[in-house]
């Protein structure tokens, strides 16, 4: 009997498998992705289904296999690289920055590679297994960055990422893997990169967020609705290129904006979004753009410490209420 729901994790696997079925140039590589099915089991069964030619277990060599993927992409293949944790992408920084991201600008030769990076906190995994990496890479010309919040977007954005002719950093929330479900069957239509979604309409304040923040935002909006405060929640979905039109349309309507993300506050993505909002919507704003973000600390392991490090629902509700009623 088919399952009635699809988890965020299953959605990633379904989308990946469907692209591998559709395009023989798509292959998967990374640590433990084959015989082990991936550390989080996203690719469980892939080795049996697609064989070792297309499901490639690599040594622990993030820089090496990232370079390998980029070289293969230069030759026209469409590799999907799994970083076991987004944290390990730092080992491949040089390859991504210098060979990959600027290859097309330098040479006119595209690198159609997808980097899957399970990111984010809240799993008590500590400072080197919980990082958010979007701010590092958001600064780099030539990369696109997506960060889906729902199973449907997880599937649709992965399909778009694989079909895109540019390197795409696909930030999958390992916290959401098994916590978020959608009704089955999933649509396997691509979700366009560069398109945000208004996931809850409101009138008093715009909450601009992505990934885990979307679910926190929706819950906060629901609670505030009971107080008569109408919150609009915008799921950015893509961080590069940013959907400025959807953001400004929302803020111009509500005249107030709050940005929410889990990554550290200092030079986090919220700074870019807040700056964009003030440039585009300054005369329509009723108050400053407020950021809710992680502390400027590493992500600690112990539950009480980690909970203090990343945004929690009460802070989000309080901030939205304060901004909406100011």
């Amino acid at each position, binding site marked *: 009997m088919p399952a009635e729901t699809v988890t965020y994790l299953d959605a990633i696997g379904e989308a990946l498998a469907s692209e591998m079925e559709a395009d023989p140039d798509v292959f998967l590589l990374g640590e433990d992705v084959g015989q082990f099915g991936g550390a989080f089991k996203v690719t469980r069964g892939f080795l049996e289904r697609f064989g070792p030619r297309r499901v490639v277990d690599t*040594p622990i*060599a993030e820089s*090496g296999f990232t370079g390998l993927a980029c070289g293969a992409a*230069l*030759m026209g293949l469409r590799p999907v690289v799994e970083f076991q944790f987004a944290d390990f992408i730092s080992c491949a920084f040089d*390859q991504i920055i*210098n060979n990959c991201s600027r290859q097309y600008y330098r040479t006119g030769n595209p690198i*159609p590679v997808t980097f899957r990076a399970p990111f984010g906190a809240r799993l008590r995994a500590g400072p080197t297994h919980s990082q958010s990496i979007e701010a590092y890479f958001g600064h780099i010309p030539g990369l696109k960055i997506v960060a889906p919040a729902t199973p449907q977007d997880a599937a649709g954005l992965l399909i778009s990422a694989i079909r895109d002719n540019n390197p795409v950093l696909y930030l999958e929330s390992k916290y959401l893997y098994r916590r978020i479900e959608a009704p089955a069957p999933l649509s396997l239509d691509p979700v366009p990169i560069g398109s945000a979604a208004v996931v809850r309409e409101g009138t008093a304040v715009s909450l601009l967020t992505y990934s885990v923040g979307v679910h926190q935002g929706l819950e906060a909006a629901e609670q505030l609705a009971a107080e008569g405060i109408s919150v609009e929640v915008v799921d950015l979905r893509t961080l590069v290129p940013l959907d400025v039109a959807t953001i400004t349309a929302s803020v111009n309507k509500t005249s107030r904006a709050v940005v929410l993300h889990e990554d550290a506050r200092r030079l986090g993505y919220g700074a870019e979004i807040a700056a964009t909002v003030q440039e585009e919507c300054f005369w329509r704003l009723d108050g400053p753009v407020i950021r809710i973000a992680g502390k400027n600390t590493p992500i600690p392991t112990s539950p009480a410490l980690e909970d203090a490090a990343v945004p929690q629902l009460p802070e989000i509700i309080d901030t939205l209420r304060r901004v909406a009623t100011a």
Partner: protein
Amino acid sequence: MAYPTTSAVDADLAVRMFEVMALMRAVEDRMVAMYRQGELLGSLYTGHWHEAIAVGTASALRPTDVVAPLHRDLGVHLWRGLEPWEVMASFMGKATSPTGGRDGTLHYGRLDLNIINPVSHIPNNYPIATGAAFAMRYRGTDGVAMAYCGDGATSRGDFHEALNLAAVMCLPCVFVVENNQFAYSTPLTHTTAAVDFATKAVAYGMPGVRVDGIDVFAVHEAAAAAVARARAGDGPSLIEAVTLRMHGHAEHDPADYVPRELIDQWAKRDPVQEAAARLVELGILDDDGVVAVFKRAHDTALEHRNKVLGMPMPEPDSEEDRVYAG
């Protein structure tokens, strides 16, 4: 040190090898003059005494094989058909350079000639070459990828990761280490405690040979053996070719740190002159024939310099073009 003996190669091939070596020397000498005349943008990286390595290896490959050369390897590009003016245009930032002026100096290379354009972070072309090899095997061809680096670049992790990946995955790769005894100013004693670089191959489970980097025929023979092995599906090899960097790291660098007696010793063995002498000795060319080759190389270099001077610079309003592929 023991070098393999020199094999006889086909006479036409031998002449072609000598011609490209002579052209490499003539083009680089011409560009040194251009550097001194202020015609180039920045510094100039040349491969004096690397001619036998570049040409001896490139001549062992098919045009459909992929190369990932670096800054001492002009002969590899010339062998494959890159025009001297394109190299000059790169050092001048011309719109007509292989990167359209978006990159410059030694970062030329055309993928349509199956040459991977290098970046400054050496040897991150090594993992890229493993990807090219992976892609050729993935597509079922018997293509080979050859990557180049110097003694200095062997210290970086990408060297290790690429060799290890290539060996574990049995990729059709040939890794060429051009041991010119200096990494900018850093001598071999500060680069490695190993007796040589060829020995390092053993630890990766691949063959490693050390060849006389002055003798183009010895280099060719070693390269042909490594290429044949890779093409047959027997995996990667490492070739260490020994020479001395006869100019500074770049032309701004007087290289006072290189002992005078070392330069005097290696000056006696000019690879281009040795190739000429060998052809005369084998009766393939006479003295007039040798002179004619040098004259043609000189004239070609000058003609290309005269041609490149008037070529256009990029338009400033194109600066933001080509960041993302469509």
